[in-house]
């Protein structure tokens, strides 16, 4: 199943498959750990709902929904979540 990163609920994790953004934005996101193959976990939403904080590569990085909805990923099942978490 393929979802948008913005559809992740806090606590859920997914592996990024595709970043559909202009090259310069993709380059920026890669530096923060968002690239295909990377596992990302949704940690929490900002109090007003947007941006959303993701746990990636051991650090916490916030993205706006407008960016996160252009990143496609496949959800990691619950068991895998528990193993890595």
């Amino acid at each position, binding site marked *: 199943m393929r979802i948008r990163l913005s559809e992740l609920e806090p606590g859920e994790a997914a592996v990024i498959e595709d970043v559909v953004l202009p090259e310069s*934005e993709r380059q920026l996101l890669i530096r923060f750990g968002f690239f295909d193959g990377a596992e990302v976990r949704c940690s929490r939403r*900002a*109090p007003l*709902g947007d941006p959303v904080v993701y746990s990636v590569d051991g650090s916490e990085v916030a993205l706006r929904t407008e960016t996160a909805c252009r990143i496609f990923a496949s959800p990691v099942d619950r068991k895998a979540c528990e193993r890595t978490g």
Partner: protein
Amino acid sequence: MNQLLQTVPSLAAKSRQQIRTVALIGPPNSGKTTLFNRLTNLRQKVGNYPGITVEQHTGVMAVGDQEITIVDLPGVYSLNPYSEDERVAVNVLNGTMDGMPRPEAVLLVLDATNLTRHLSLAAPVIALGLPTLALLNMGDLLTKRSGSIDAVKLAGDLGIPVAIVSATMGTGLDAVGRFLQQADSPAHTTLPILQDVRECRKWAARVASESDYRPPLPPAWSRRIDDILLHKVWGPLVFMIVVGAVFQTVFGVGQPLSNALQDLLTEMAQKAAPFIANGFLRSLLLDGIWKGVSSVLVFLPQILVLFLFIGLLEDSGYLARAALIADRTMSFVGLNGKAFIPLLSAYACAVPAIMASRTIENKRDRLATILIAPFMTCSARLPIYTLLIAAFIPERPVVGVFLGTRALAMLLLYVLGFVAAIGTAKMLKSSVLRSTSAPFVLELPEYRWPTLRSVGLRLMDRGRVFVQQAGTVILFMSLLVWGLTNLPLHQGHPPALEDSVVAHLGHFIEPAIRPLGFNWKIGVGLLTSVVAREVIVGTLGTLYGRDPQTQSVSLQAALQHDLTFSGAMALLVFFAFAMQCTSTLAVVRRETNSWMWPAIQFFYMTGLAFLAALFVHGLLSAIN
């Protein structure tokens, strides 16, 4: 894995040369600045790289009996020149930066608690072929949170020496001195294709795992603090308390300190006066130079108080959370959460606010923030607001005892500035400063205790930059105004104010400001208050004090006699919008590193002020 690898050229022949300049490079949040401060012990210079806005920090470090220059490069994640910061880093490292010799060695700072990610910067740095020492910073935190790294294996893999250090605690730094006395070029090693960022990251992950890197446990207590500070209800509540505290402190502590400093400086001038021969020299020294310098120095307490707060918020990690909470609201005007604190500070004074906009990495957002900040009602507008409101608006209750007409007028002026700022932001962000290629990415660092040393250094740094840069321009402008009020000389004596060049200028611009309901005296006030808004009160005091008709009455009464109601309201609106502050212009020039932006800002704001005052005067005259 793609095996398209390249090998570093051996520069053995060039190694072991005398090292005079060394570059310090590392990703943002790697503790690079703390390390720089440690190594140089404050012996540093702050400037701008020629032609661009990136700030250049250089310092001196003593190694043995020689002195080595350390260049602190901007924080970068890679050496692919996408951002201005990265271009600077690449140019300095390649020796193609104007007026800067190519460094003979590199200190690569990486966050040991974030090594998998930070290591990808090692590849392009090692590929330069310069002698390089990798400093794994925050080694103390790594151990504390049960992480580990085999530095010897890592050094073998990278082909460069590796040292585990802690810039905050000052441990492990003797390795830097040893390295600089005996620096070798990197050994042969295999590196990924540097242009392929993904390959670099895969390489970094492989190197980390080969060096037995065990990442630290997630900072559990940091997450727990976030459970409260980013909570749906408590988060915004704490945010508002923090914002209120910043505002209150800058006003409540900074302002009285500024006033006290003003009194002290005035008293010093009075004490010094008898020791200087009366006449031209005393006037030049005290009225020209001393007053000019004082008018800058009095801002210093507010700036330091504000930066103390920002320093504590940033070093503790809360500033990033505040930006996260404010982002949703700020996005409505096309700005992001990081613009919030600078704009809030601008209610006290635009100068520190503009300096605080450095925390915004996106250049266009930062520029938009700088351009709208002076619309916020700063404390320098209060003297003229208070004077005109007291003189022209009778006090009547509007909402019982809670709100009177005068308080309402003051509130409306605050709203007016805010609306102008929002409108301008929206206009800029949907036209010339539209950001297309920079999404909002905000890293939330771990919470840490701010250290006295780091906050103190930041205060000194900002204070010094402000006094140096704004001080020179303000000094020049004050001397100019002083000169114009004291020329032309009559038989070697300065003229009466009405005969001075300034008065002639006032009469000269009178036709232009008459439609706004202003006379030539207000015109002179507008001219002199280009230096600083509050100057108009003093100028009007002098001018009306010399006029026989209004000599004996207070300034309030003189204004009531000389200005119509609609003219007074137009003047208030003019001050809400106009760009009358050389300190701000000087800081904008410094921060944007161009004369174009302060010029655009000056003409835009003053033009808007003129049109708004024209409209208000016309409207009120028609009604009356």
